[in-house]
């Protein structure tokens, strides 16, 4: 059989299986806004772990990590640096966020700001930053999908067609099954991803060099500087490493979808336990590095380093295996994309549209609007992915630097009772201005430091200064946890 047909049928089979699991999850659950967005806060350790692993490990980790190892060398270690640390940070914030979420029936990240700072404008600002930053992230998943199909079909299937079909499926299952369906599809995705990462990470260096040690020895011969920072780059040294690891570790859970995943848990201690075990999932990352480094020796000079992993898999293994890897990669794009769609749509409907334009909307109407937004966001990201190509990596970095600016508002919101909404608003605006300014003028890294990190420092400084200069008004979260009926956006809870 034609290898293209074999590879593509296996990829489609895996994608359809994933979508079926997503649809199946719906059939047993009645859906309201609460169920659709936060799974009725009933997720135990296993489902929370699956959901978080499902959304955290995206195409960027799968294809991007091997691509960075291929093109940049040692700076790729920043991924292995921030991954354990972002869970360490989550240990100290997510259980507290969960507690506030349970008390006030919070569903989105912006809800947290609404309740803590009592300002609909700050909450809408946070929602806006979240939605805007999600679009390049979605676009990245789509482009990853396009790459996979392009490689697997040797260019026979146009990427635009593949992206359209895959995303129609994603939008459809987000539409009908909500967060629980996504967590269940993650099971298939995680099994395939872990299995294929373990296998190719060990097999590919072994096939070409009889082991990882010999591969490293050959690489030290060929490119002695590739394996120590700044590797094959001129400006990604130790200052860049420290500032990037700190910025991402603080900023990671500020992605609105990761933040909101905290609300799905059944208890705060489930989130603590989750933070303890999640770093173990990162054992696959070095294997992705090994694949990228082997590809550098075997297939030097690829035009697009993000294709290093897929190209060496295609060269090494039969077509059915390429199909399996491609299918795992496709789900790795689709599961996070589904969560990004769901989060972006809910944020828009609940925290931007309702408070600013139509305060009288019921929860049912919000749910309806959110579902319509799923389609709008899908079409928007699709249009961007088809029309633009190269610049999305810089867009994603801009997205990271953008969401990281939400961090001071969260950490001060939890632990500094004095922190005021005005201070947080000013700090965020300043941080975003600095990040956009530095990145658009191509000053990232600036003075050897990550631009998002510099922006975050200015954000902290402005937040503290404006808070201290404005009159004391806030009571902090202690007050918000007192037992009494709470009012959030028209939802009365006893």
């Amino acid at each position, binding site marked *: 059989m034609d290898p293209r047909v074999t590879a593509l049928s296996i990829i489609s089979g895996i994608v359809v299986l994933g979508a079926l699991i997503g649809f199946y999850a719906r059939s047993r659950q009645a859906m309201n806004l609460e169920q659709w967005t936060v799974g009725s806060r009933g997720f135990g*350790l296993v489902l929370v772990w699956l959901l978080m692993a499902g959304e955290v490990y995206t195409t960027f980790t799968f294809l991007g990590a091997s691509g960075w190892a291929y093109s940049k060398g040692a700076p790729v270690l920043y991924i*292995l640096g921030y991954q354990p640390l972002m869970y360490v940070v989550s240990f100290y914030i997510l259980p507290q966020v969960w507690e506030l979420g349970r008390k006030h029936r919070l569903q989105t990240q912006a809800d947290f700001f609404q309740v803590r700072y009592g300002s609909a404008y700050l909450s809408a600002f946070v929602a806006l930053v979240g939605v805007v930053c999600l679009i390049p992230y979605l676009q990245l998943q789509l482009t990853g999908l396009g790459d996979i199909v392009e490689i697997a079909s040797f260019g026979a299937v146009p990427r635009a067609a593949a992206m359209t079909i895959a995303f129609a499926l994603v939008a459809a299952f987000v539409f009908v099954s909500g967060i629980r369906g996504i967590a269940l599809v993650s099971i298939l995705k995680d099994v395939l991803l872990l299995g294929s990462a373990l296998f190719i990470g060990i097999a590919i260096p072994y096939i070409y060099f009889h082991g990882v040690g*010999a591969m490293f020895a050959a690489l030290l011969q060929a490119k002695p500087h590739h394996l120590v920072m700044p590797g094959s780059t001129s400006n990604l040294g130790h200052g860049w*490493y420290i500032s990037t690891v700190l910025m991402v570790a603080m900023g990671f859970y500020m992605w609105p979808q990761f933040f909101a995943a905290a609300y799905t848990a059944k*208890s705060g201690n489930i989130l603590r336990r989750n933070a303890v075990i999640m*770093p173990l999932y990162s*054992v696959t990352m070095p294997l992705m590095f090994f694949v990228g480094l082997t590809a550098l020796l075997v297939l030097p000079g690829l035009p697009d380093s993000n294709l290093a992993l897929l190209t060496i898999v295609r060269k090494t293994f039969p077509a059915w295996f390429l199909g399996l890897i491609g299918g795992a990669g496709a789900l790795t794009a689709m599961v996070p994309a589904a969560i990004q769609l769901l989060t972006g749509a809910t944020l828009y409907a609940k925290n931007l549209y309702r408070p600013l334009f139509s305060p009288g909307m019921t929860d049912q109407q919000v749910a309806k609007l959110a579902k319509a937004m799923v389609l709008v966001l899908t079409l928007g990201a699709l249009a961007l992915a088809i029309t633009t190509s190269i610049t999305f990596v810089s867009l994603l970095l801009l997205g990271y630097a953008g969401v990281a600016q939400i961090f001071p508002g969260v950490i001060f919101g939890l632990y500094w009772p004095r922190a005021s909404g005005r201070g947080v608003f000013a700090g965020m605006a300043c941080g975003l201005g600095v990040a956009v300014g530095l990145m658009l003028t191509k000053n990232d890294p600036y003075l050897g430091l990550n631009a998002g990190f510099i922006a975050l420092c200015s954000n902290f400084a402005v937040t503290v200064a404006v808070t201290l200069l404005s009159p004391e008004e806030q009571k902090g979260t202690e007050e918000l946890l007192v037992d009494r009926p709470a009012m959030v956006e028209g939802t009365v809870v006893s």
Partner: protein
Amino acid sequence: MKRPALGSILLGLIPFTAVCFSVGLWDHVYPMVFGIPFNFFWLMSWVLLTPLCMWGAYRIEVRRNPDKERTEIGS
């Protein structure tokens, strides 16, 4: 909001120091361990050692924050 205990914060600072701030001390190829450059090996070890530190922090925090309802593992 109830702040985490000093002990659990200190335990969380261990991985931060080992993985992030001390990069100048471990970012070199030699000595290689099992054929893997030292910087790669160091970070790979901390993927396993970080959960150990955080397990200690978990033991401290779970005593201060008992679950209101019984929770079981699974969904």
